[in-house]
């Protein structure tokens, strides 16, 4: 356990000293700040625009960081051969993988927190009250990020950064559209295609499950049970993906 923490903290340190991350957080904050400007262009719905843009920025930049840091998490170590020295120490491969994952999860937590502080500041400036819906929406955004990082780590553990970026990005996009797979399947006559689409529906992460930004902004009540089940789904999905990653990684040769 302690080795996972050591690797996680080192990963966190690595991320902190990466300038790209600061740029992304900066642009995230800039976008959140710009919502004030944009809201003045509209009539009436100002509060909604600010909340909408704020949540979307936190989500978007979180996903960008999750994908682009996540894909390098393992493959960059292999490419740079830094992994040789780590695995030559009394470290199990799964400890390395989980350590890297937890490190990025920590980085994302801090990043999200910074952007949330920026968001809340803008809300304060705009004299918009902070509803519990916003907190729920932000929590679920973070859970979505954890799922995406798990997927990125899985691809990263057996393929190159470029390929894992494409795959992870694809999963992210499809993950928001999985409900359509179901709808499409229901309309098809062919049982086989229908089966495949249904299989994909259950296999791919249902990222739309974590999206409660709309209801949060419009003040629609989000049931606590929904939030709990979404969190449970996200955690379970990530755990399974990480388990698969560990199995793949365990058998890998480092040429």
């Amino acid at each position, binding site marked *: 356990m302690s080795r996972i923490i*050591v690797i996680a903290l080192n990963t966190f340190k690595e991320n902190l000293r990466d300038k790209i991350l600061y740029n992304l957080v900066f642009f995230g904050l800039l976008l959140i700040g710009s919502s004030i400007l944009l809201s003045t262009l509209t009539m009436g719905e100002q509060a909604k625009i600010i909340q909408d843009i704020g949540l979307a920025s936190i989500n978007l930049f979180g996903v960008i960081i999750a994908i682009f840091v996540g894909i390098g998490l393992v493959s960059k170590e292999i490419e740079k051969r830094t992994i*040789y020295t*780590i695995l030559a120490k009394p*470290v199990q491969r799964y400890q390395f993988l989980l350590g890297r994952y937890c490190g990025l999860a920590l980085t994302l937590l801090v990043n999200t927190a910074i952007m949330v502080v920026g968001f809340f500041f803008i809300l304060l400036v705009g004299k918009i009250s902070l509803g519990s819906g916003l907190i729920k929406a932000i929590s679920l955004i973070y859970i979505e990020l954890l799922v995406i990082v798990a997927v990125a780590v899985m691809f990263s553990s057996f393929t190159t950064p470029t390929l894992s970026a494409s795959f992870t990005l694809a999963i992210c996009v499809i993950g928001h559209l999985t409900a359509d797979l179901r709808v499409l399947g229901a309309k098809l006559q062919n049982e086989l295609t229908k089966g495949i689409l249904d299989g994909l529906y259950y296999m791919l992460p249902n990222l739309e499950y974590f999206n409660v930004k709309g209801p949060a902004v419009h003040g629609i009540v989000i049931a606590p049970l929904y939030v709990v089940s979404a969190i449970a789904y996200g955690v379970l999905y990530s755990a399974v993906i990480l388990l698969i990653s560990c199995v793949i990684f365990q058998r890998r040769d480092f040429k």
Partner: protein
Amino acid sequence: MTPIRTDGLTKEFRLGLGRQRVVALDRLNLEVHQGEIFGFLGHNGAGKTTTIKLLLGLLAPTAGQAWILDRPIEDVTIKQQVGFLPEAPYFYEYLTAEEFLTFYGQLFGLGGAPLTKKVEELLEMVALTDARRLQLRKFSKGMLQRIGLAQALINDPALVVLDEPMSGLDPIGRRDVRDIILGLKEEGKTVFFSTHILPDVEMICDRVGILVRGRLRAVGTVQDLVGTSGVASVEMVVAGLTDAGIQEAERQGGKVLRRGAQVLLRLDDPSRVDSLVELVLRSGGRLVSLVPHKRTLEDLFLEQVKAGL
């Protein structure tokens, strides 16, 4: 305790679309003794790094077995007593020298005051105390190699495995690494290192193994392999030798190189030295110098490589 033992250790790679089989290491049987410096020689692509990666569990063997400190290599806990420096190492460049060593120490479960003390000692040993707060990205190649050696020693290992520790270093850097390796032996540690820089090997290794195309061609002490008596050739410098004398010397099997008034005679068959000296004196020449050349490890290495290809 046997630091390293392998039994028929074999690694095959499958390359390309045709999945063509390439044998990188072919049935390696090797035993490294306690407390010795073992030099693992081979040309580029001979299988040295593959062997080391197999020993450290970075690759899984296709066949055969290996033991480190009498325990099978699959057992991760043996690494508690092993130090490793990979070839042309890349490290976390965003860490400072101090943070870097601390991180590796923590992977061994070290911490607190003992770790701080150990880090200080190692920085001192590899002469990087002044650079302790410098990020590794600002390090020179020689400094990186030295900090790499330091990380390999953070756990006070019984066995130190170094992959090409001297490659890419200038003469001073090579001497530093050599001194560190000799220091490790004095502390009773076993050192296993791969290289193709032969003079270093002759200077510091107790025993060597020569690997050619994945096969171990020779193992033993440098003296055993090269031969103690083995004078391979003799070189004579002679002055005032007449043309007739030179021709006669060539007939006797000497190779002739004229250098102004002097002549260099090289004889590959040392047993004919006496008759050649006699010939030189008889034909009015004067012997300036006579140097016997011993067979070097390099000669042996080149012979083995030629025979193995």
